[in-house]
């Protein structure tokens, strides 16, 4: 769809709002998307330099609603609801607080756990970010037909199984938002880790993911501000006060973690230029040329992380962001604030007990307190029966043994890591380390 400049300009802002409003109006995500698309096509045909409407959003909504009614008439779907839908053409655009809910509802609906992860990612990129099916297919290296099928199946399931398009209750908000943030982070990781593909540069997925986190944080903030004040007039006032409190609290928790994720992505993306060498191979953080990092983006990361931490609701994304931030601000690997990083990994391990987090903590300990202490921490993880088959654990252990001049033990550990596989570059790296030992 070739968009004229004015239309392209309003697209980013108006697309998610339009789809969200239509999804509630029509109760059908697929029809909402089609009508939104039709409205933009009409805008591209009609809007000129002299003839752009004053309120593009309202124009698009009115046009999309008419298109939806036409489609329903033509296809004779929902004929029983047609009279009600006809009224839509005269309904004014929703109030701002309603819009916030509609947009959040759309995000939560696209990331509903009754859909598989691939479908959640595709739906979010299509419905919320407004990428075309072809663009999403290119980004995930599948054919357009495959991606179209995936999207159709997901939209069908939402309609047939009545997957709710609504903002979850406070009790579920935390888990549901974790799912949303997981989708956002997967979109980012897909853009960050894979080589650039043709057409849509996969790096664009990073931008989409950061934009999504920004929008979700903003919406959660506005929703929080709109929580109705508690008026003490009825018998169940206490109950309602509790409900409003827990809703507000869940929204603040969610916003803190959403901002944390946004900061984490900013720090990670800022290092994009230093990640690969001339041959396109991965460079360890330790060896990266830090002058290539994007300082402005790192500063932005610290600002966003500051906003998150100011909410005083620590969570796993904020901790990961804080760790990434500490790396981003350090002049060198050795100069890094390792003591803080040890503390943050410890805190992260308590929230999310994972042996890999503990391994990272052990490496940080080795930098803060020396290789002996780090080795002790790794051996403790292995003694508990974790990570025995994880090659990075043995490689990290081997490095520490090497630093302690325990050459034979180091060789044995490198060989163990080597035996556990890995790609060619990693294998070569380990062989070089073994050769350097003697």
């Amino acid at each position: 769809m070739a968009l004229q400049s004015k239309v392209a300009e309003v697209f980013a802002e108006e697309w998610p709002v339009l789809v969200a409003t239509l999804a509630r109006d029509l109760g059908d995500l697929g029809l909402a998307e089609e009508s939104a698309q039709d409205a933009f096509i009409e805008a591209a045909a009609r809007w000129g330099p002299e003839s752009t409407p004053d309120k593009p959003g309202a124009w698009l909504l009115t046009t999309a609603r008419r298109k939806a009614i036409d489609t329903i008439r033509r296809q004779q779907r929902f004929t029983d609801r047609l009279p009600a839908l006809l009224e839509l053409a005269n309904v004014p655009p929703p109030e701002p607080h309603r819009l916030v809910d509609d947009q959040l509802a759309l995000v939560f609906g696209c990331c509903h756990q009754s859909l598989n992860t691939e479908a959640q990612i595709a739906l979010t990129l299509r419905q919320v970010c407004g990428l075309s099916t072809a663009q999403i297919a290119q980004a995930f290296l599948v054919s357009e037909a495959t991606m179209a099928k995936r999207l159709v199946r997901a939209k069908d399931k939402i309609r047939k199984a009545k997957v709710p398009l609504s903002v979850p209750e406070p009790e579920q908000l935390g888990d549901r938002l974790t799912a949303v943030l997981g989708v956002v982070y997967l979109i980012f990781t897909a853009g960050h880790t894979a080589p650039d593909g043709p057409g849509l540069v996969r790096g664009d997925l990073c931008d989409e993911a950061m934009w999504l986190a920004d929008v979700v944080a903003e919406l959660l903030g506005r929703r929080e501000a709109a929580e109705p004040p508690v008026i003490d007039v009825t018998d169940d006032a206490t109950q309602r006060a509790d409900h409003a409190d827990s809703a507000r609290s869940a929204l603040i928790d969610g916003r803190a973690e959403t901002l944390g994720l946004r900061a984490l992505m900013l720090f990670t993306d800022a290092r994009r230029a230093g990640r690969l060498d001339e041959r396109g191979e991965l460079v360890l953080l330790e060896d990266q040329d830090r002058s290539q990092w994007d300082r402005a983006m790192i500063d932005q990361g610290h600002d966003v992380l500051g906003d998150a931490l100011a909410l005083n609701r620590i969570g796993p994304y904020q901790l990961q962001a804080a760790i990434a931030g500490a790396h981003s601000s350090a002049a060198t690997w050795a100069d890094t604030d390792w003591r803080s990083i040890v503390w943050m990994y410890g805190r992260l391990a308590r929230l999310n007990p994972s042996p890999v987090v503990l391994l990272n903590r052990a490496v940080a300990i080795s930098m803060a307190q020396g290789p002996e202490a780090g080795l002790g921490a790794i051996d403790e993880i292995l003694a508990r029966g974790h990570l025995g088959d994880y090659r990075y654990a043995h490689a990290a252990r081997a490095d520490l043994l090497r630093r302690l001049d325990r050459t034979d033990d180091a060789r044995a550990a490198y060989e163990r890591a080597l035996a556990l596989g890995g790609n060619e570059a990693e294998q070569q790296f380990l062989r070089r380390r073994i050769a350097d030992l003697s």
Partner: protein
Amino acid sequence: MRYLLLLYSAETAGPAPGTPEHAAEMQQWFAYSSEMAEAGVMQAAEPLHGIDTATTVCVRDERTLTTDGPFAETKEVLGGFYLIDVEDLDAATAWAAKAPSAAYGSVEVRPILEIDVPG
């Protein structure tokens, strides 16, 4: 919106009949069913005899073929169902999660395809 909750579990999973644990689970099923009835969401619910009592029928070339069992090598078998009428999929999965057998088996949640009979 109506959903069918299909209760699947391995035939050997769950407490064995005659044990105090089995009696306790029966109490849980009664409580579960009463809660549904009180909430006004239950339209039908039945437990099924074991799969060793099943008979499979199919018609091919106008001949009816009747066989014992399915005895398929499936690990989990259908043990019963609930037909419920609730607001949306979230409400249906919440009820599914409360089924006593969800702790050792699984519950498949299927939306009912409502067909308008003209007339």
